[in-house]
């Protein structure tokens, strides 16, 4: 069955703060959505990420390895988390993405996985 990456996007300076009522509501919504994915068999994997400022970029050329601080792409929006789901087709994936967007209160990018 085709698999899709559903990614969550935040402003680069987004700092997760789970103490606010808003954040707690989102956490509960996402947990309910995850349960639903697992029940329906669409669930493959999911994770939330630490902020983009925690990222490190590693490059390899020949014997040399360089390590630099910060996310790879210097963009205003950064990925904050993702789901990997399996769905019969794009329309099913888009439907799940709509529910993911509602649960996480933000836009979701849907991308098909190869294979």
């Amino acid at each position: 069955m085709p698999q899709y990456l559903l990614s969550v996007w935040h402003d680069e300076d987004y700092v997760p703060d789970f103490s606010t009522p808003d954040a707690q509501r989102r956490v509960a919504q996402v947990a309910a959505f995850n349960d639903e994915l697992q029940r329906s068999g669409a669930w493959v994997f999911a994770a939330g990420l630490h902020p983009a400022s925690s990222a490190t970029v590693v490059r390899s050329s020949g014997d040399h390895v360089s390590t630099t601080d910060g996310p790879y792409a210097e963009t205003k929006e950064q990925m904050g988390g993702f789901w990997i789901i399996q769905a019969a087709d794009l329309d099913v994936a888009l439907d799940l993405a709509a529910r993911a967007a509602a649960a996480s209160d933000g836009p979701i990018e849907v991308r098909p996985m190869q294979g």
Partner: protein
Amino acid sequence: MTDTLDAVFRREAGRCTATLIRVLGDIDLAEDAVAEAFAIAAEQWPKRGLPPNPGGWITTTARNRAIDRVRRESTRVERYIAAHQMHTQETDPDATPEGEALDRFVDVVPDDQLRLMFLCCHPALAADSQVALTLRLLGGLETSEIARAFLLPEATMAQRIVRAKRKLRDNHAPYRIPGADELPDRLHAVLASIYLIYTEGHTATAGRALTRVDLSTEAIRIGRVLATLMPDEPEVIGLLALMLLTEARRSSRVDAHGSMVRLANQDRSRWDPSLIEEGHGLVQACLRRNQPGPFQIQAAIAAVHTDAPTAADTDWAQIVALYDQLYAIQPNPVVALNRAVAVGALDGPSAGLDALANVNLDDYQPYHAARADLLTRAERIHEAITAYDRAIELTANSAEREFLSRQRQHAATTPSRP
């Protein structure tokens, strides 16, 4: 012979492609099979004469090519059976790729064209890709023809079509008719795409000729197919009526010098009575159904215009009422602009300008043209000239520019209100 083959191709290509996409589970393979069938026709028909049923011949030949291909490539058989079972509602779980079951799979079913329309206008595609794909797969137009129609380099259009097809394939877009819950949104995308093709043909956004026959004709042809396939969807009928009633006035929109003629000054004897009659019949049918939608209301407005023997006879009160109804469904500034023009015709230019007061469409040429006209009639000449200049600056179509320049000239010689 070439003309006949062209005519058959235009009529059958979309239908064949639609069926073969279902059979082969792949857009490119389907296009190849259809092209192959037409290549065989081009070779055989001039020698043997036209078959009794040219359309049927093409469909059968393309089907046979498809069956051969499917049988040759057994892995694909499994793939397409799987795809078929996944994406269509009338699934037969015992279907096998052998014998009759296979023949049944490749039967031409009208639903295939609907599937193809919804696939081409999938919301995951941008509007310009939806339009290009619809013309390519349903219209059977060559990429070079589509590029010419949109005044784009062929490479740009080819890339747009290739990307759209690849996106649908990589994303496993289903080949199906959307279910009832999602149908309104998905159908709207299809209708919007067909209407975009029509308006692009009706008023070329750039270039010399005001009307481009091919795209408008193609949009109406696709609109007719859709109306046959979904006769119970009032908006489908509304769109067809709107296109027919707009098309009926086409030959009078441009004068002998290629300059645009506005509705009030058009020679109504040149309007096409058969298109008007057909359009009015469809509008009546929509009214009886009483499930109004944006395309039906716009068609009703066009019907009020085509109902008037002279411009002075136009029932502007009715048109304003219809724009009020349209604005309630689609509260966007373009509708507000058209409503203001109607108000200006009904209650005078000052009332029209009042209705325009809260409309903000600074980058939209028709806004400045309409405002310039209302200002001229209100004898506010300085403001009118400024508005004409802005409208002329924003138009890329030479027929429209000539029209606006003449209007500006006319305004400049009108005495200003003391």
